C-alpha cells in the first residue's frame, strides 16, 4: 500500500526552491489597501460625530437670542422636530397607497411590455434632483393648487388641518407634502415591487388554483408574504422624507410653530429647511445652534432607519 517517494520522477526540478513562497507582496499590499479603505469609513463616521459634536454641542446652550425667537434650544427644536415628523407623515399618507398600487401594477397587473417602461419611468422620477422638484412645487404646482387650498379651508374647515385663512400663493406645507410624496414614491415603489415579485410562484398558483380572482390572489398570497418588506419600504421612505430639505425650504413659507394647519401662509418649519434657510447667518453661535439641530435630525433619522432594519431582520428570521 505504500510506494516510496520517487524524486527521480521530476528531473531538473529542485523541489526545495520550487514551492517556497516567492512574493505575496502584492497580496499584502492589496489586502492592506482594502482594509484601509474599509477602516476609513469607520474613521469618517467617527469624524462626522466628533466634528458635529465639537461645533454643535455648544449650540445646546447659547444666549437666548440665537434660538430664532424661541428662547431656548428645546423651545426651538421641539417645534422643528414636530414639523419634520408631520411633513414626513403627510407625505407618507399620500405616497404609500400610490406606491403599493404602482408596485402591484408593475409586478402583477400590467402586461409585460407595459410594466418594463413603467418601471423605467418611475426610476426616472427618482433621478430628478430635489431642487428641481422644489422649483416645480413653488412655481407650478403651488399656484395651481390655490383653488384647492381655498376649497379645503371653506368646506373642511372643521378639521384642524384646514381651519384658517388659506394661502393665496399655494406655498404651503400642503403643497410641499404632495411634492415630498412624489419624491419618496419611487423608493417605496421599487422596494415593494421587488418584494412582490419575490412571492413564490407556487403560492400564487395555489391561490389561483383554488379559484381566487386576481385581487384575492394578491390579498391572500402576495400581501402576507410581502408584509415585512412593505413595512421596511415605508420606513425607508419615511427616513428619506425626514431628511429632505429643498422641497420644503423652497415651497413652504415657514414659521417655527407647532400647528396642524397646513394650507396657510405660516407653515410649521422642519429641521432641514430651518438649517437651509438660516445658513447665511454667520454668527458662530447661531451656526452652532443650527448644527445642534442637525445633530438631532441625524439621531432621529438614525432611529427610524434602525427600526426599519430591525423589521427587515425580524421578517427574515421568520
Amino acid at each position, binding site marked *: 500500500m505504500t510506494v516510496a517517494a520517487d524524486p527521480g520522477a521530476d528531473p531538473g526540478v529542485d523541489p526545495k526552491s520550487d514551492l517556497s513562497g516567492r512574493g505575496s507582496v*502584492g497580496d499584502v*499590499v492589496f489586502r492592506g489597501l482594502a482594509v484601509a*479603505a474599509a477602516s476609513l469609513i469607520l474613521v469618517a463616521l467617527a469624524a*462626522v460625530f466628533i466634528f*458635529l459634536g465639537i461645533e454643535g454641542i455648544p449650540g445646546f446652550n447659547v444666549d437666548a437670542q440665537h434660538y430664532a425667537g424661541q428662547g431656548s434650544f428645546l423651545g426651538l427644536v421641539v417645534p422643528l422636530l414636530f414639523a419634520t415628523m408631520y411633513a414626513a407623515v403627510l407625505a407618507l399618507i399620500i405616497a404609500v397607497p400610490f406606491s403599493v398600487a404602482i408596485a402591484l401594477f408593475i409586478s402583477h397587473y400590467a402586461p409585460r411590455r407595459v410594466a418594463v417602461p413603467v418601471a423605467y419611468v418611475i426610476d426616472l422620477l427618482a433621478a430628478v434632483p430635489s431642487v428641481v422638484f422644489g422649483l416645480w412645487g413653488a412655481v407650478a404646482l403651488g399656484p395651481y393648487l390655490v383653488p384647492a387650498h381655498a376649497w379645503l379651508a371653506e368646506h373642511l374647515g372643521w378639521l384642524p388641518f384646514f381651519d384658517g385663512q388659506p394661502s393665496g400663493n399655494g406655498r404651503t406645507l400642503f403643497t410641499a407634502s404632495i411634492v415630498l410624496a412624489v419624491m419618496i414614491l419611487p423608493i417605496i415603489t421599487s422596494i415593494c415591487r421587488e418584494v412582490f415579485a419575490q412571492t413564490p410562484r407556487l403560492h400564487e398558483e395555489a391561490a389561483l388554483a383554488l*379559484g381566487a380572482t386576481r385581487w384575492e390572489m394578491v390579498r391572500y398570497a402576495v400581501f402576507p408574504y410581502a408584509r415585512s418588506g412593505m413595512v421596511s419600504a415605508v420606513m425607508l421612505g419615511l427616513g428619506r422624507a425626514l431628511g429632505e430639505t429643498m422641497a420644503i425650504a423652497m415651497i413652504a413659507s415657514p414659521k417655527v410653530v407647532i400647528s396642524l394647519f397646513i394650507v396657510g401662509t405660516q407653515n410649521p418649519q422642519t429641521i432641514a429647511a430651518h438649517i437651509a434657510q438660516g445658513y447665511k447667518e454667520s454668527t458662530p453661535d447661531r451656526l452652532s445652534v443650527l448644527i445642534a439641530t442637525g445633530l438631532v435630525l441625524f439621531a432621529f433619522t*438614525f432611529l427610524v432607519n434602525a427600526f426599519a432594519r430591525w423589521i427587515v431582520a425580524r421578517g427574515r428570521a421568520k
Partner: protein
Amino acid sequence: MSNIDLSNEETTLSHATLPRGAQWLVGVAAIALGGLALVLGMGIVGAVVIGVLAFLIGYPLWALLVENRRSATDKLITGLVWTAFGIAVIPLIWLVYMVVARGASVISPEFLTYSMRSVTGDEQGGLYHALMGTLIVTGIAALISIPIGIMTAIYLIEYGKGNRLAKAITFLVDVMTGIPSIVAGLFAFALFTLLVGPGTRFGFGGGVALSLLMIPTVVRSTEEMLKLVPDDLREAAYALGVPKWRTITRMVLPTAIGGIVTGVVLAISRVIGETAPLLVASGFNPNMNSNAFDDSPMMTVPVFIFTQLSEATAKGVSYAWGGALVLFVLVMVLNLIARIVGTIFAPKTGR
C-alpha cells in the same frame, strides 16, 4: 373575509359573464360622460376626474349586477391600480414639460458662458460659474468616493466575509446611507471650520460633503456586483496558481466591471443634483471660481437654482428654470451613460 369565499353559484362551471370587451364599452361611456362634463364647462381637470370616476364605479357595478361581488371587487381594484399609475405619471410629465418649456427659452450661448458677476437688473447673466463649480465639486466627490467605495466593497466581499470588522463596516455603511444630506453638508462645514477657520465655505468642502453621500451608494452597488461573480471562477483562478490579489484585479473586477461602472455613474447622477449639503458646505458665489482649494465659496447649479428662485423676480425664476434644465440634462445624460455601459458589458455568451 378571512377565507376565499366559494359560494354555491360557483359549482357550475359557466355562469353569467360580462360580454367580451366590456371594459372598452365602459371606457367609451366614461369618456363620453367626461366629454359631456367638458361641454357643460367643468374644465379639463373636472372632465377627466368625472370620466375616471365613471369608469371606476360603472365597470365594477356592471360586474356586480351580472357576475358576483368577488368579480366586482377584482375589477374595482384593477381600475384603482391603473388609476394610481395614471395619477403618478402626471407630476412627472408636468415637471418634465415645465423644465423643458421654461428652461429652453432661457438657454442661450450667453446663459451658458456668462457668470453672474456684477449682473444687476435685466442685464444678461449666466450659470457658467455654477456649471464649472458643479463639475469640479462632483469630480472631487467622485475622486474620493470611487476608490474608497470600491476597495471597501472588495474588502467586504473578498476578504472580510463574516468577520467582525466586516460586520461593523456593513452596519456603518447602512448608517451612512441614512445620513440626511444636509447633515453631510454640516459635517463638512464643521470639519473645515475647525481645520481652516470659521465660516469656511469652498469647493473642496462641498466635494467632501457629497462624497459622504456617495460612498455608501458606491459600496452597495459594487458589493452587489461582486456577489454576482460566481465563486467557481475565483476557485478556477486560484487553482491555476494565481494569487488572490491578481484574481481580484484581473478576473473578478473585469467580470463585474459593467455593473460597477453603472453603479458608480448612477451614484454620481444622484449627488450631482444635491443642493442642501452644497448650500452649507460650498456656499454661493456670483463669480467664477475654479479653484476648489481657495478659501472662497464655489457656486454650483443646484445652489444657483435655489438662489435664483429666492430672488423672487421674474428674471430670477426664469433663470432658475434654465438652471433646472441644465441640471436635468446632466442627470439624464449620466443615466443614459449608465444604461449604455450596462448593456455593453452585459455578459457575453457568444451564442
